[in-house]
């Protein structure tokens, strides 16, 4: 069920990116889609009553170098978190580039409305 809500968020973003005619709205739609995918990836790794994948002194015995079983059996999945970290950065990069293009288009055309920006025929 949480997955379905997350997918709903993705679809809302897709709707916004496809239907809206304001350039900033399109960018916002893409941002929503990105957030939905990131959320979905992290949710895949969640474990009920899990612990964060960070070993602190409570779980680590410096003498033997052993990690407590309470950590090994309860930690959430670290791999999707690493992927999401990468994908957040990619999202920020593409946001910066997209907004730069938007601002330059606004300078040239004086509008954010893509229906009025029609020099090229599709």
């Amino acid at each position: 069920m949480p997955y379905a809500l997350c997918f709903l968020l993705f679809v809302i973003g897709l709707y916004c990116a496809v239907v809206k005619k304001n350039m900033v709205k399109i960018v916002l739609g893409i941002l929503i889609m990105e957030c939905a995918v990131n959320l979905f990836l992290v949710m895949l790794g969640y474990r009920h009553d899990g612990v964060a994948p960070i070993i602190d002194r409570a779980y680590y015995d410096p003498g033997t170098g052993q990690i407590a079983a309470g950590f090994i059996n309860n930690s959430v999945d670290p791999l999707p978190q690493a992927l999401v970290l990468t994908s957040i950065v990619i999202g920020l990069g593409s946001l910066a580039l997209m907004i730069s293009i938007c601002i330059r288009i606004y300078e040239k055309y004086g509008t954010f409305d893509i229906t009025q920006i029609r020099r090229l025929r599709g």
Partner: protein
Amino acid sequence: MSIPLPVFIAIPLTTAFVLPMFGAKGKAAATVVANLATLSLLALAIACIGQSGVYEVGKWPIPLGINLVLDGLSSLMLLAIGVVAAGAMLFSAGYMERYTAKSKYLSLFLLMVAGMNGLVLSGDIFNLFVFLEIASLASYALVGFGCGHEELEASFKYMVLGTVASLFVLLAIALVYGNTGVLNMAYISKAVQSSGVNAGLGFALGLFIVGFGLKAALVPFHAWLPDAHPSAPAPISAMLSGVLIKTLGVYALARVVFNVFGVSVEVGWLLIVLGILSMVAGAFLAIGQWDIKRLMAYSSISQIGYVVLGIGLGALLLARGDSLAWASLAIFGGLFHLVNHAVYKSLLFLTSGSVEMSTGTRDLREMGGLAAKLPFTRTACTVASASIVGIPPFSGFWSKLILIIAAVQAHFYWIAAVIVFVSLCTLIMYLKVQRYAFLGELPENLERIEESRGTMRVAMVSLACLCVLMGSLVLVPGLRDAILEPAVKVLTDGVKYSAIAGM
């Protein structure tokens, strides 16, 4: 294996990171360094022919770490990228003098090359996504490099569709991870074989096809290409049409469909339908164009259709369990057409850049009689046109012939008919280019134009020579066995790819 594979990424990345520091004063030095980088990549790609191997990054065994896989298909793509990148980079040395911020241009160019090289070598599905994003972001910025009205608009359109495609791919990767718990492609392949393609994986496969189809500009998803490719500077158009849509689209699609999920009849038919739609629609739309680069961009859609058609036909035959020989012939035709198209379409875009630089216009109606003024450009353009149309003995003839033979042998006579028909349309559109640009009356305002010279001429002439020689890839058995056959074998072997994962 003699060559450490990360070199293909490390060389362009290091060069790209250093280049912006050169600034305005070191422009000449930056150009030389960038050309050296692409030439060394080409040399390395040639050295990799016939080799295969797996490289584990950071000494972590898979599936803990990421591996780089060099097989026949990867080395074929590396070779295509190397050739086109070297040619386009040589051409940009002269052509890009018209623009400012040249060192940043060179840096972006190399980043795009690094992204494509990383993509074809990657053995990990998320890593493939990361490199796909590098190449895509660099290409968005390069399409808008001129900062004019059309450039920015095309860039925005391209960027929105491209980002949506990337997010589809990312969602598909998440679904695959959720179903199998691994990210390495060989391990995914193994898991898919044991569990079968369930609803989740099927949906992921659909998302992959839509995402990579958007990047390859197959016909229902082609809206961005006719704007983006003409708007970019000519060497970038050559890169985009020549290799980018093939690497990001066709290569990734083929890898996922054949090697990870395994072929099925439905996917085979889907690819055939997409391919034929692209071929026909692209050809019809191209004939009506008067902008020379726009015409070539539509023709790219049509030509990418041939490649996808060949690969789809192969997938269909493989999935049905028909004769392996005909399946591999169809795939052979598709891949050979891919390489051919990389060479002659990039040459065509370079010649269009040369024409545009000399005449200052891209409209065919304002040109005419350029054959006397631009002899080198004219010769190169004629060679490339003859190749793309498929006049024997030029290379395009052989790849189309192979596709037709494969279609006939598989008893799809209508497909063979469509291929011949689209070839005729191609003939019409390139006759139109020859007639209006190079023959006829020279308009008065073009009396004083000059031929491009220096590195631009070298780039065009060397690519034209290569275009003539391309036929030997299929006619000389030694070359065929070294370059194309291993690539075909990678695809026909299908999910045997998972052997990389060990037992």
